[in-house]
């Protein structure tokens, strides 16, 4: 990826925005991308890694094409979010933190996603799925390629 040092009119380097671009393009932020960003922005690579590893929507490890994020916070827990985690795990055969062998899904647990009035909830990529029941899971996952 070719990156040029761009500072916008606020003198802003927008490192996070550019990490997110790389993430969207390559599915994760590789060491090469971090090195190139560090060079182009003239900052230490440690700083780039420090930022890339800080935020939950950035990953320094390769991920699947679709990222499932099931909410593990209290309002979803109270509505039996655990059963949703179990049925996702059963459906795709992996546990949270893993990626399926075919690279289709990565499975993560996330903290509150602000859908508590319709708990339990999850996000797949940026899509919200609410009022979940174990029965709905297969059908929802089936809509992702």
């Amino acid at each position, binding site marked *: 990826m070719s990156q040029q040092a761009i500072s916008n009119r*606020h*003198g*802003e*380097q*927008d*490192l*996070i*925005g550019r*990490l*997110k671009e790389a993430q969207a393009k390559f599915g994760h932020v590789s060491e090469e991308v971090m090195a190139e960003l560090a060079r182009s922005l003239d900052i230490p690579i440690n*700083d780039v890694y*420090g*930022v890339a590893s*800080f*935020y*939950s*929507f*950035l990953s320094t490890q390769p991920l699947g094409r679709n990222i499932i994020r099931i909410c593990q*916070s*209290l*309002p979803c*827990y*109270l509505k039996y979010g655990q059963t949703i985690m179990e049925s996702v795990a059963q459906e795709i055969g992996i546990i949270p933190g893993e990626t399926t062998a075919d690279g289709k899904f990565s499975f993560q647990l*996330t*903290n*509150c*996603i*602000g*859908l*508590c*009035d*319709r*708990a339990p909830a999850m*996000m797949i990529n*940026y*899509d*919200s799925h609410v009022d979940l029941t174990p029965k709905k899971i297969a059908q929802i996952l089936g809509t992702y390629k």
Partner: protein
Amino acid sequence: MPQENIVLKNCGVIDPRQIATFLERDGFQALEKVRREMTPEAVTDEIKASGLRGRGGAGFPCGLKWEGTRKAPGGEKYVICNADEGEVGTFKDRYILERDPFTLIEGMAIAGYTLGAKTGFIYLRAEYHHLFDLLENAIRQIEEFGFLANFTIEIREGAGAYICGEESALMDAMEGKRGEARYRPPFPTTAGLWGKPTIINNVETLMNIPRIIRNGAGWFNQMGTERSKGTKVFSVSGDVPKPGVYELVLGSSLRELVEGLALAKNTKMIQIGGATGRIVPYEQIDTPLTFESVLGAGAVIVFDQSRDVIDIVHRTMEFLAEESCGKCTPCRQGTEVMVETLARFHRGEGLKKDLKDLADLSEVMTLTSLCGLGQAASNAVTDSLQHFKDAYESRVAGN
């Protein structure tokens, strides 16, 4: 005290994609009024007189914040809308943004006028990515109608971090850094984004601004209690038949919200303000909802009699340990130690001395943490030790 739609008055009434439906109400009349009739000083005086306090959880007097930023030396100043709603159990800002982005932008434009700022930012959490287009559409329509004059509003999207809802961490994130809380002073009023004076307000706070300007501080401060004026928008979830968003005049009772509106039954306790909030036992359900008692950002999670207090507090602490930014020791280490200790109680292996250790550690974290996260991280522990001590004592090993 009654339910009152002031902040939410356009929600469900206007089409958030059509500015015309907003203009049919009283859209932009407040902005036009400040530009036509009011000096920046008069605007901050009006906000001060209204008694409006920040709706993001901390409750800082909004007028003082605006006045401090207006008076701060420096030509370049910024306005930020904090739409990084990450507190557990909070979804009212999402509800507002989905239904009435226009009033929010009007509030930001009034802040911009007051500071003579050229740029405002909406910092939107990554989890609310689906609102990006809606907000951008609203900004574009408002620009086309010429209401923003020479004020520009840009959206910056977060990348997933609870701590970035804390204002100084949010500004670090906007500057492309790890979102870690800053040492203060200096405060954002004098040195905020890129070191410039910055007004940073929660979505709901900014929603109140056009209402106050249009109807006057005297109208606003008739509502509420002596130190909590206006209304509050609450997010109710958990063991209730009717979870959702409710707006009440400040000072209304917790019972009215939880039992009256959300129809809760058989309640054991309520967590108000999310993971860093307070735990209120059912016996205190007549507590008024005010800044003086309990409020936070208005997250109200209801737990019925079937719930285990230790399990709830343990999960709360797991969340905080994970989301601590790690910059200051009392928060980074304190939350971890609390998770370990609470896990022991959860397994029924608590130690007698743990009870005192938890209380001592709570005090240290509250007194010495760098930001609100660490300072309030032990609230659930402190409150549950006070109201549900039996639950802990019954889990001491050997009991």
